[in-house]
């Protein structure tokens, strides 16, 4: 009780100084909490974007690169426009003249046998595996010819996911929730039925019961799917068997094939092992995790994430170190002012460690209060950021695998169409329990560090020297 009484009275005596130290620590740890909250929000947003591509629970995806297009081979889908005529070639099979193209293709990835899924699922540390077809439905109206210097025709496209809903619990489809209508049933495996992303449906005035044309085939919409905010979901989901029957890749049907395998490891620690085993099983395949694809997400979300990690983190560290330094200096000053008092206590028979415990106790109280205030500052900071932060965007660019050229006697121009998806992200800055605990721990460490520097002086204090000081 004497300890508490002495501590309380001393903090009250130097209330202004104690409050100053608490506020300094609060500012430092509050900034750390805010930066952590923003960083956590950024990671969550990026995770949502990537999960929209691969689905919740997917640790790894297995794909295969298609053969690259070169002028000397006939791979891929080529459209050549000349003043004398248009030619559309699908892996060497060509047709000429004006036409409307509705091509469902898997040109972004090469095909993998469906049996690959079972082979991967048998590997150690693999909890489950599933597969599907990630496709693009490309629609274009090709005129008979294009005048010299004229613009090449543009295509419209949407993403199609061939869903293995009877076997797989992984992939983009499993992440969504059916908001209207119904989800796929076992009997739909060979039917021309589709689920459509709710945002895509709204943008194209689609609803349950209407039709969406895929590869020139009308599919009846049986349900609308809502995906997590910020994700990059497919626009249309159709049964895998129908996708295999309708889609082509490099001129070949995709019967019995998939082009994406989704893998869930037993635990996060097993991901590298599983990744290595799949690489051994399928040397030509590309095995990626959502985090390794983070570099593909561009836009202001990516920029803000980088800024938070670099500038934000260093700013927080700098402010925190400054708070520690100020706390240390003020504590040393307080100890210096009390040298005579501590010398007297030592003369009364107080051991150094008892005097030190008193000083450390005062520092601990200041640190805990500073930490709790810092948590409050952190909450206020993250709330302010959520309130005033501008909307961010995440952009993912995907190749379609198509190649357009316009050839003339004097030369040619060409481009490879890509699909750019830009998703608005509402900024969030959630304060996590980890951040709160870290805030309090940092503040306490800072205060104890300051107290220990003062305590070092006390430990070396000789009573005779202390008492000789002029009050």
């Amino acid at each position, binding site marked *: 009780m004497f300890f508490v009484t002495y501590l309380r009275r001393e903090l009250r005596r130097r209330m202004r100084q104690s409050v100053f130290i608490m506020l300094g620590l609060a500012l430092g740890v509050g900034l750390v909490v805010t930066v952590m909250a923003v960083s956590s929000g950024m990671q969550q947003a990026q995770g949502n974007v990537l999960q929209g591509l691969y689905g919740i629970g997917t640790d790894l995806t297995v794909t295969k690169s298609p053969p690259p297009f070169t002028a000397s081979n006939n791979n891929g889908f080529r459209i050549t426009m000349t003043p004398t005529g248009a030619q559309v070639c699908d892996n060497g099979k060509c047709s000429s003249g004006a036409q409307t193209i509705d091509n469902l293709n898997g040109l972004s990835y090469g095909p993998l046998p469906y049996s690959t899924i079972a082979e991967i699922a048998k590997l150690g540390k693999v909890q489950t595996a599933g597969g599907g077809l990630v496709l693009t439905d490309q629609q274009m109206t090709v005129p008979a010819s294009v005048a010299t210097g004229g613009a090449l025709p543009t295509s419209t496209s949407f993403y199609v996911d061939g869903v293995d809903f009877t076997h797989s619990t992984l992939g983009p489809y499993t992440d969504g929730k059916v908001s209207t209508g119904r989800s796929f049933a076992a009997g739909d495996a060979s039917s021309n039925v589709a689920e459509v992303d709710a945002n895509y449906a709204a943008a194209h005035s689609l609803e349950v019961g209407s039709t969406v044309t895929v590869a020139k085939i009308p599919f009846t919409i049986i349900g609308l799917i809502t995906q997590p905010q910020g994700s990059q979901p497919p626009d249309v989901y159709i049964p895998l068997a129908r996708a295999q029957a309708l889609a082509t890749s490099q001129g070949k049907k995709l019967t019995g094939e998939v082009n994406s395998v989704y893998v869930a490891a037993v635990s996060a620690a097993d991901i590298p092992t599983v990744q290595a085993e799949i690489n051994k099983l399928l040397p030509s395949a590309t095995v990626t995790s959502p985090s390794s694809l983070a570099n593909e997400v561009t836009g202001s979300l990516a920029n803000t994430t980088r800024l938070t990690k670099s500038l934000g983190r260093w700013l927080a560290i700098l402010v925190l170190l400054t708070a520690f330094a100020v706390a240390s200096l003020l504590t040393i000053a307080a100890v210096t002012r009390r040298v005579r*008092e501590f010398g007297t206590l030592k003369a009364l028979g107080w051991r150094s460690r008892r005097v030190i415990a008193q000083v450390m106790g005062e520092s601990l109280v200041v640190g805990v209060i500073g930490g709790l205030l810092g948590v409050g500052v952190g909450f206020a900071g993250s709330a302010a950021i959520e309130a005033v932060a501008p909307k961010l965007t995440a952009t993912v660019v995907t190749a379609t695998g198509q190649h357009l050229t316009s050839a003339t006697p004097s030369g040619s121009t060409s481009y490879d169409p890509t699909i750019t998806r830009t998703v608005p992200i509402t900024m969030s800055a959630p304060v996590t329990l980890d951040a709160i605990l870290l805030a309090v721990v940092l503040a306490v460490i800072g205060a104890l560090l300051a107290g220990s520097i003062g305590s070092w002086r006390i430990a070396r204090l000789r009573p005779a020297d202390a008492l000789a000081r002029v009050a």
Partner: protein
Amino acid sequence: MYELSHVTRNYQKGRRTVSAVRDLTLTIEDGEWLAVQGRTGHGKSTLLHLLGGLDRPSSGSISLNGRDLSNLKENQLVRVRSESFGYVFQTFNLVPTLSAAENVEAALVPMGVRGPERRRRVAAALESVGLADRMRHVPTELSGGQQQRVAIARAIVKEPKVLLADEPTGNLDEETRDDIVNLLEKLWLERGLTVILITHDSSVAKRAQRVGVMKNGNLSILRDSRRAKRREPEPTA
């Protein structure tokens, strides 16, 4: 009983060595009141610190009841300080944030005296210095004389063998000075304390049994009336 044998205390001042106490040999009997006078800077306080275990001699030995203080380990010396010595300082040295009772209590903290016994002894000590009605007052609410009384209560609450007073009346007016000296004399007589008092005030020094003068680190005894009859204490205010 104190036995000082060839005690020297030197300090380094740059390249110079300053002897605050030079080759002092002295015996102080149990229950004796020794006053040490002298001008500032001649080693009075250094001698007091050596006698109170607050400092160690550069050479020589200081024994208290056969125990050589100069050779004790630090934790042993701290224990002796907590049990055997009571200190009174010129500037009172009370903890400004603690009340009179809490300041007195601070002396019992290292002795491990628990709650009810602690409160009883604190109350008794303040009663003996006439401040039972000022227990809850903090030093800023007490006069100089009252603060010094609290300091004396703090010194005697642990029932020490030795009371060491460094200019206890230095900051007090004449009337209060006399009150404090009377109080010290009363406690000396009642409790059989060994009192070693530093002062530059002759009127205070003359109350002691033995009076010495420190000059340039050397102690000379001016008067020794230890064998004379102990007189009754003068009445306190």
